[in-house]
């Protein structure tokens, strides 16, 4: 089944074809489940003018934050940003554009992008700055906003395990936006901790079927923790 073998040998190959001014959808929530090595490869490549769609923008020196260092990001589409000083500076200096999108709407926009739904209605954001310039419509006596789908030139995704056909499972809450981004990229690249034999993943428990995935690359991960909270042991 050579035609279904999605595994590439290097990160360079994984991000081949990335060009300036492209739109990239990235999985992850905070620093959890972020495609950290694919982000590093984008930094190495030096592509500029990028639009990045991701719930957050990393921190100074890690995650998407490192793409700010060489001003590679032109625009962020996110629900929550600014955990990093560099982000704040570039935003205030007008070097970075931000489109704030409610978290649930952002998730649904990516899902819609992958699912051939060009737009959907939601009550989220009605009467708020998010509603500016958007169509509204009443259903059953309540007002809803029309929100359009998002797709990307690339989707960069962090999985736990994948097989060569690109079937992916995620680990714990590192799932988050990853399966949604995976559906909505023209080229979807998944980096994983482990590549397993085809047939090893239970068909009923695959989170992202291989049909959405173009490339799989094996990586090692730092997995930085943003807020380390522990229960002291007695």
């Amino acid at each position, binding site marked *: 089944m050579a035609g279904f073998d999605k595994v590439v040998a290097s990160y360079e190959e994984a991000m081949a074809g990335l060009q300036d001014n492209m739109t990239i959808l990235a999985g992850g*929530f*905070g*620093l*959890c*489940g972020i495609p950290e090595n694919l982000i590093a490869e984008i930094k190495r490549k030096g592509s500029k003018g990028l639009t990045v769609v991701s*719930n957050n923008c990393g921190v100074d020196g890690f995650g998407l934050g490192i793409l700010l260092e060489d001003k590679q990001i032109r625009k962020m589409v*996110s*629900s*929550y*940003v*600014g*955990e990093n000083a560099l982000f*704040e500076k570039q*935003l*205030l200096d007008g070097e970075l554009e931000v489109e*704030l999108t*409610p*978290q*649930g*709407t*952002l*998730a*649904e926009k*990516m*899902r819609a992008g992958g699912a051939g739904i060009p737009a959907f209605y*939601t*009550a*989220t*954001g*009605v*009467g*708020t*700055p*998010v509603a500016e310039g958007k169509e509204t419509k009443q259903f059953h006596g309540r007002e809803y906003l029309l929100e359009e789908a998002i797709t990307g030139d690339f989707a960069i995704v962090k999985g*736990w395990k994948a097989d060569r056909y690109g079937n992916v499972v995620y*680990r*714990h*809450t*590192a*799932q*988050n*936006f*990853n*399966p*949604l981004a995976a559906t909505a990229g023209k080229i979807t690249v998944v980096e994983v901790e482990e590549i397993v034999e085809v047939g090893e993943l239970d068909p009923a428990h695959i*989170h992202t079927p291989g049909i959405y995935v173009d490339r799989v690359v094996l990586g090692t991960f730092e*997995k*930085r*923790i*943003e*807020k*380390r*909270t*522990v*229960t*002291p*042991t007695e």
Partner: protein
Amino acid sequence: MSLTREQMAQRVAQELQDGFYVNLGIGIPTLVANFVPNNMSVMLQSENGLLGMGEFPTEDTIDADMINAGKQTVTTVKGASIFSSAESFAMIRGGHVDLTVLGAFEVDVQGNIASWMIPNKLIKGMGGAMDLVAGAENIIVTMTHASKNGDSKLLSNCSLPLTGKGCIKKVLTDLAWLEIENGAFILKERAPGVSVEEIVEKTQGKLIVPDDVPEMTFS
């Protein structure tokens, strides 16, 4: 005396029911989990994709892949489920969460809430708050009754950009428990030792004061 943060959490916890699925925001709402009555169970939903959030892990069990919406490392309880952000907000937007508790800057008599944006200050974003207030039937807002300058946060019209429109019916402040009905705050309970006069003075929006306003009790 105005309520402490712990007392506020304790008062909110009195609104819990056995079998409730609950989403708790950052700050005082998070503390509510510490006051769940012994004869009752609730399951905590965390909007990053977790239903059945447990306590913080130990140093031995900490796992970067297991966090909550506040980005804190957590554990799961038995019977938990983990899913994508789209599924998580399907639950929230679809009204499946029984109770949402969150903080705010301002609330008004129309049930509007402002909680995410102060113009001319750095805007970090609304995160999941707009989805939470739009999706939930049952929301409790927790906040101080007035700012440190003494400016009321219970207004006739929110002055800040909204998080949600007409969605708030219950507010717990450090001074009072209030409900919003027909364009007014109804004073339901006052903090122990706090006078009705003080609450009236610190409430800018229309306030209806029933004949009898009992003090809160904490058992």
